[in-house]
């Protein structure tokens, strides 16, 4: 069988509809008639129905399918008026074109693919009645056909004429095929052997044609044909009109068949075919008289009077005479069909072998599938005769043109002025006119659905449209002029015609061959060929191949399958390239445009960059195919090269030799060298700069001579945001909870750890409890480590008077806040939930209802974004504006928030403020955490605190240990005093008032911290003892206790503690105290660093406050009682109350020097000042923070020098280049 059968698209059921009608008539023979049994095409049915209508012997509508009835009722009197050529083509496929190998509009023989499948050998199972339908696998390429069978069964049931003829197995959709198809041999059916029709549904047919003598075998039949074990109808596989989903009234419209082609053409839909039911007995006699010897004759089972010699398989199929093996109704009027057969008028002129006869062109034998029951040469004529006899004459009698052409002619006859035509309409008007001029071969009327064009193979719409002579179509101007007001003389003048012809010739150049320039756009796009082999029509390609190739039947299965796969390839374009790749892989160039492959380094030019492995593979491939590398004729320049080549960039190029010379010819490819291991190229300039910077930072740690600059000030400037932060922390009261946000990671620890350390110490010193929380999980861990280091500092705990401090009681490390702003907002609005557990998931017991319950909100922030979030999300909900500690890099953008009236209550910036903060804390703590001197056996700690010893009165008039930070006029000593201009602003202690006292022996009334001391700046005490550390003794008057309240202190150290003559390490020791020894406290310095004690022998001295634990006694007679710093707010916190911000005043520093301070003595009761002592030797060691500061200073100098030097060098280089 020809491979054309494979070309049938599955969406052409109308073609098969007709063919199945034809076959259905054959099947009906067995069920209806017993004397004849030969099928006819659907044309016969169609004609029979028409004839029945004419003879009034059968109701035409009843004979018709429902959709046919609807169609015919719409067009009464013109039952065959087919004005749409698309529909025309449809029925042609089922009529004469079948005999002539006509094709569909795209593929002339495509429909035959499935048609030829119909002669499937009948299966015994198929002959048995089957019930129901089964779903059909969608992958079955013939699904639609099986579904069609069922549809036919359903349609037959709807037909009242078929109902009486319905066989018991009428539901079997394939029963009609059982009496018709010769059975192939089992061995010759590959499909049967494989057991799957979907594998190669047509392969078995190939053998079937060759081996006609094969016996019937149910096993050989494809399963889908048997209908027994194969599912049937899926409605999805069928067009709606076929499945009957749209009801019997929905005919197979042209939209379904040709996808709206008629709409595009503006043509009336095709006429409904007149239903015809054909009895094989009626129509078989004529062609049975001279059947071909090799023609498979399918007689009606039970036709004993037949002269035909039925094959053996026929007995199997029609073993039971009278059995209804078909489902299609058979006409009860056999005489009608005889009328067609014998009473046919003169046959139409015999047409030559049509172009669409694929069998003839392919050189294949006639298709012997049973439907070609007449001689090929005469079959068409006879058919036409049958058709022509009973058909009413078409409107255009005397011509054989189809109705749709007649309609076109009618349309062309309409005056153009009355019917404005579009371009397409105009085209078809011309087309009709042209066709009308052609000789009509068929003179007999009455066959509107059959014409010479169908017989001549013009069933293909492409060919049909392409067959028109465009030259004849061009001069349409006269037609237009005849109906329009146009100057014909002018229009028909030679000049005008030449212009028109030249114009159209130019247009024709871009059109397919043989197509008029006036052709509609869709036709042009289709690339309609004129039947030439160069066209894109599938039929043309097949014809071309058929002429050149051997018959498909001679191919082996393997080659046949390969050929089938090749048929799926797109048409080979013209003028294939002559490249090697095209020779190796023909067709690849056309499918995939070749991309230039330029191996090499990647660039912006768009070429490929191959990896080493890919390059090796490419080389191997080149070796195999003997391809030489293409030398790029042009080396594209990169954007960098173009930039550097700009004239303005000449001065900025390091080396002109490195500039690419675009005009220079490409250098010769270097010889392949042995690839050496990649060397690490050190940037010595960068390394040198790094070493220089490192040396600048390191040297101050080692070499004191390189310590340049001054240390940060010991105090914050008054009114600064840092001072505001300090004061805000200083307002904390014992027991209060201070929130500390941790928003920095370990990377910024070097800068922000000092700030965090200072904040935490300050909070703890105030007796408050810090609660840490943060959005950085690792930062929170780091902060906890910092806090734990502080807690584990015994000296600091001694300052606090606490032996131990535990988590979730003295401090809290709350949870990690994920989500940045979301986390902060969630915490701000739901503090209890977030404060309920700590970072380890343990309950904290912290009772905080809202954010305002925090006495202080502080945060240590690394990034600007985090600082902004705290200012935005936390600040509006906090009781006080939060204070932030940020790095230097974030300071410029955060400082506006700390402006007066801003969101922040204080701001600490970088290491400088941290240094100052810690200095203040050191003053407050007396360097309690510093290491003891090497020569000191006791644990007395040196102090570097500026010894602004403010005389205080511990027990005041109230019986409590009130806050003793009194408004004083103090002077600032030390380096700060030496480097900063003193001011005259006496500072008021911000933390010196309203301290609640719960001393057991004291009154509960808070006091206003009555200060007895009055600062007398003009009365410097006798001992202004300058020390290197700026420590000065303070003449402290022991607190008077008019009410008899005495304060005692107990040595809280493991070693002996020295008692010195003055408040400073420079004073000599006069006594030592044992651990736990109790002494009376008679005074202290203003910074609470040193405590003046009275020994048992009456001598007085000074002891570092960090080594004592204060106790008080209500009356002198009562024993001293231990004061709980948390139970009693007064003593413990008062004693270690941090000093207020102090600023030096000129009065306070009458003799201020860089290392000398003037002690301002204010005492309620003047006491003899300590004896002046000589200056101690200068200390040689510096704490690390000082070294760090010096290192930073020198490093900054180095950075500035490097930047400046680099800038100068660049400028000089630019100048030199410009000069040169």
């Amino acid at each position: 069988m020809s491979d054309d059968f494979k070309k049938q698209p599955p969406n052409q059921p109308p073609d098969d509809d007709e063919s199945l009608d034809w076959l259905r008539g054959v099947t009906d023979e067995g069920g209806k008639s017993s004397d004849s049994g030969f099928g006819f095409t659907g044309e016969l049915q169609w004609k029979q129905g028409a004839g029945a209508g004419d003879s009034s012997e059968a109701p035409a509508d009843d004979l018709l399918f429902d959709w046919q009835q609807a169609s015919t009722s719409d067009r009464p009197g013109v039952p065959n008026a087919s004005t749409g050529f698309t529909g025309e083509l449809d029925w042609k496929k089922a009529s004469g074109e079948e005999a002539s190998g006509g094709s569909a509009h795209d593929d002339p023989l495509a429909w035959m693919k499935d048609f030829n499948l119909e002669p499937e050998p009948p299966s015994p199972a198929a002959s048995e009645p089957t019930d129901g339908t089964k779903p059909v696998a969608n992958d079955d390429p013939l699904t639609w056909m099986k579904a069609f069978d069922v549809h036919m069964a359903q349609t037959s049931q709807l037909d009242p004429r078929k109902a009486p003829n319905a066989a018991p197995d009428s539901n079997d959709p394939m029963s009609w095929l059982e009496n018709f198809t010769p059975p192939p041999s089992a061995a010759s059916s590959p499909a049967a052997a494989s057991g799957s029709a979907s594998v190669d549904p047509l392969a078995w047919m190939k053998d079937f044609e060759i081996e006609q003598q094969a016996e019937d075998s149910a096993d050989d039949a494809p399963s889908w044909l048997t209908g027994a074990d194969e599912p049937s109808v899926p409605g999805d596989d069928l067009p709606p009109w076929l499945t009957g989903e749209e009801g019997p009234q929905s005919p197979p419209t042209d939209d379904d068949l040709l996808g709206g082609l008629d709409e595009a053409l503006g043509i009336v839909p095709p006429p409904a075919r007149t239903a015809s039911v054909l009895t094989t007995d009626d129509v078989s006699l004529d062609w049975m008289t001279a059947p071909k010897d090799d023609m498979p004759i399918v007689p009606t089972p039970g036709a004993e009077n037949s002269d035909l010699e039925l094959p053996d398989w026929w007995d199997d199929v029609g073993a039971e005479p009278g059995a209804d093996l078909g489902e299609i109704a058979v006409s009860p009027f056999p005489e009608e069909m005889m009328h067609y057969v014998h009473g046919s008028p003169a046959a139409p002129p015999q047409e030559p072998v049509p172009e669409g006869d694929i069998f003839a062109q392919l050189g294949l034998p006639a298709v012997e599938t049973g439907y070609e029951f007449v001689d090929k040469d005469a079959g068409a004529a006879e058919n036409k005769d049958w058709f022509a006899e009973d058909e009413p004459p078409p409107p255009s009698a005397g011509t054989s043109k189809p109705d749709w052409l007649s309609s076109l002619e009618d349309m062309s006859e309409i005056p153009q002025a009355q019917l404005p035509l579009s371009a397409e309409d105009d085209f078809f008007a011309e087309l009709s006119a042209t066709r009308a001029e052609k000789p009509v071969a068929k003179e007999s009327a009455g066959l509107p659905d059959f014409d010479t064009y169908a017989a001549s193979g013009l069933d293909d719409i492409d060919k049909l449209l392409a067959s028109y002579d465009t030259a004849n179509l061009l001069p349409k101007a006269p037609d237009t002029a005849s109906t329009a007001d146009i100057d014909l003389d002018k229009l028909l003048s030679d000049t005008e015609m030449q212009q028109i012809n030249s114009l159209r010739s130019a247009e024709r150049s871009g059109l397919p061959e043989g197509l008029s320039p006036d052709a509609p756009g869709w036709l042009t796009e289709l690339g309609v060929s004129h039947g030439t082999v160069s066209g894109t029509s599938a039929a043309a390609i097949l014809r071309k191949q058929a002429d050149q190739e051997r018959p498909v039947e001679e191919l082996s299965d393997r080659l046949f399958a390969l050929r089938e796969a090749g048929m799926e390839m797109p048409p080979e374009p013209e003028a294939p390239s002559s490249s090697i790749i095209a020779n190796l892989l023909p067709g690849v160039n056309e499918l995939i445009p070749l991309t230039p492959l330029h191996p090499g380094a990647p660039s912006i030019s768009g070429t490929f960059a191959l990896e080493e492995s890919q390059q090796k593979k490419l080389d191997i491939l080149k070796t195999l195919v003997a391809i030489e590398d293409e030398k790029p004729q042009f080396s594209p320049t990169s954007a960098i090269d173009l930039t550097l080549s700009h004239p303005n960039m000449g001065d900025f190029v390091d080396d002109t030799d490195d500039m690419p010379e675009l005009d220079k010819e490409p250098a010769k490819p270097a010889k392949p060298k042995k690839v050496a291991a990649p060397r690490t190229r050190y940037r010595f300039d960068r390394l040198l700069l790094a070493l220089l910077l490192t040396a600048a930072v390191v040297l101050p740690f080692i070499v004191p001579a390189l310590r340049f600059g001054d240390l940060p000030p010991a105090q914050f400037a008054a009114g600064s945001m840092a001072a505001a932060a300090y004061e805000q922390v200083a307002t904390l009261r014992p027991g209060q909870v201070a929130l500390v946000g941790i928003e920095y990671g370990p990377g910024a620890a070097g800068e922000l750890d000092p700030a965090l350390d200072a904040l935490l110490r300050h909070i703890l010193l105030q007796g408050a409890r810090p609660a840490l929380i943060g959005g950085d999980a690792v930062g929170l861990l780091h902060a906890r480590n910092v806090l734990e280091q502080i807690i584990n500092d015994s000296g600091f705990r001694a300052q606090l008077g606490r032996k131990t401090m535990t988590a979730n009681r003295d401090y809290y490390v709350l949870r990690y806040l994920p989500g940045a702003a979301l986390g902060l907002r969630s915490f701000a609005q739901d503090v209890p939930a977030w404060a309920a557990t700590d970072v380890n998931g343990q309950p904290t017991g912290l009772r905080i209802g809202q954010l305002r319950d925090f006495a202080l909100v502080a945060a240590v922030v690394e990034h600007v974004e985090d600082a902004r979030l705290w200012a935005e999300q936390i600040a509006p909900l906090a009781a006080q504006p939060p204070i932030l500690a940020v790095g230097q890099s974030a300071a410029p953008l955060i400082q506006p928030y700390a402006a007066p009236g801003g969101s922040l209550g204080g701001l600490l910036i970088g290491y400088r403020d941290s240094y100052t903060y810690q200095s203040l804390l050191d003053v407050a703590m007396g360097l309690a955490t510093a290491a003891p001197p090497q020569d000191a056996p006791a644990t007395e700690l040196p102090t570097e605190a500026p010894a602004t010893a403010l005389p205080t009165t511990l027990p005041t008039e109230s019986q409590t240990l009130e806050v003793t930070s009194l408004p004083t006029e103090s002077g600032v000593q030390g380096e700060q005093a030496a480097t900063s201009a003193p001011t005259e602003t006496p500072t008021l202690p911000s933390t010196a008032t309203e301290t609640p006292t719960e001393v057991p022996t004291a009154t509960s009334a808070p006091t206003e911290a009555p200060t007895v001391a009055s600062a007398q700046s003009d009365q410097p005490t006798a001992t202004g003892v300058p020390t290197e550390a700026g420590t000065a003794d303070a003449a402290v008057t022991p607190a008077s206790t008019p009410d008899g309240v005495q304060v005692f202190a107990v040595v809280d150290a493991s070693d002996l503690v020295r008692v010195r003559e003055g408040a400073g390490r420079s004073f000599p020791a006069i006594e030592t105290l044992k651990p736990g020894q109790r002494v009376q406290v008679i005074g202290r310095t203003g910074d609470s660093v040193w405590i003046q004690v009275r020994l048992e022998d009456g001598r007085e001295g000074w002891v570092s406050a960090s080594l004592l634990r204060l106790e008080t006694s209500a009356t002198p007679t009562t024993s001293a009682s231990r004061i709980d710093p948390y139970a009693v707010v007064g003593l413990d916190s008062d004693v270690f109350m941090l000093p207020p911000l102090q600023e030096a005043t000129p009065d306070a520093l009458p003799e201020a020097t860089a290392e000398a301070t003037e002690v301002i003595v204010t005492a309620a009761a003047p006491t003899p000042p300590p004896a002046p002592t000589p200056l101690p030797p200068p200390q040689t060691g510096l704490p690390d923070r000082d070294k760090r500061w010096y290192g930073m200073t020198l490093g900054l100098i180095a950075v500035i020098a490097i930047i400046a030097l680099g800038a100068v060098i660049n400028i000089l280089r630019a100048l030199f280049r410009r000069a040169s």
Partner: protein
Amino acid sequence: MSGEQIGLWAGLILTLMVFSYLLGDNFLYRIAIYCFVGLTAGYTLVVTVESVLVPWLRGTLLSPESGVGGMTIGLIPFILGLLLLFKTSSRIGRASNIAIAFLIGVGTAVALVGAIAGTILPLAAATGSAVRVDVLSGFLLFLGVACTLVYFQHMAQRSANGQIRRRLVIRAAAGVGRIFVILTLGALYAGAILTSLTIFSERISYILSRIMGG
């Protein structure tokens, strides 16, 4: 050697390994970085589970006091988190858009409210107060803000001859604003250098203290 000492020496070694990047990308540097990144990721995971997920579960799903509503609320974050895992699939990846949309929507709303309440209004008030307190500083502040805003606007007029130019006043103000921007960026750059120096000096101090025992 105690655990603390081991930690200190490990810190020293890791610091030197990081500093080896001065010689270029090398194995030691990568090892140190990988350790840091890995430890950070691991610790963050642990902290997130202990500090975020577990408390949430205890407060909602596992809490006997929470009813159906509480349990439902407790499930919502986990459902949204589960949807985020679908991002790895191309077929059902769109399901994660729900969680992402929720995050983006809520985050934007929170940021917007915070920006208004915490940045715009306070800064505007601070700017106004600064003008009243210190005339010179206030004037400079106002000038800087106004000129910087002008500098970042790019509207211009087309003259009759087709040229597109800004007016002279606008250009002058933009020039002043540009100066402010340059100063700000310079301050940021200087701050970054100071921060780097601070951190570097801390590391140097740490190393020296380890080596010299100081």
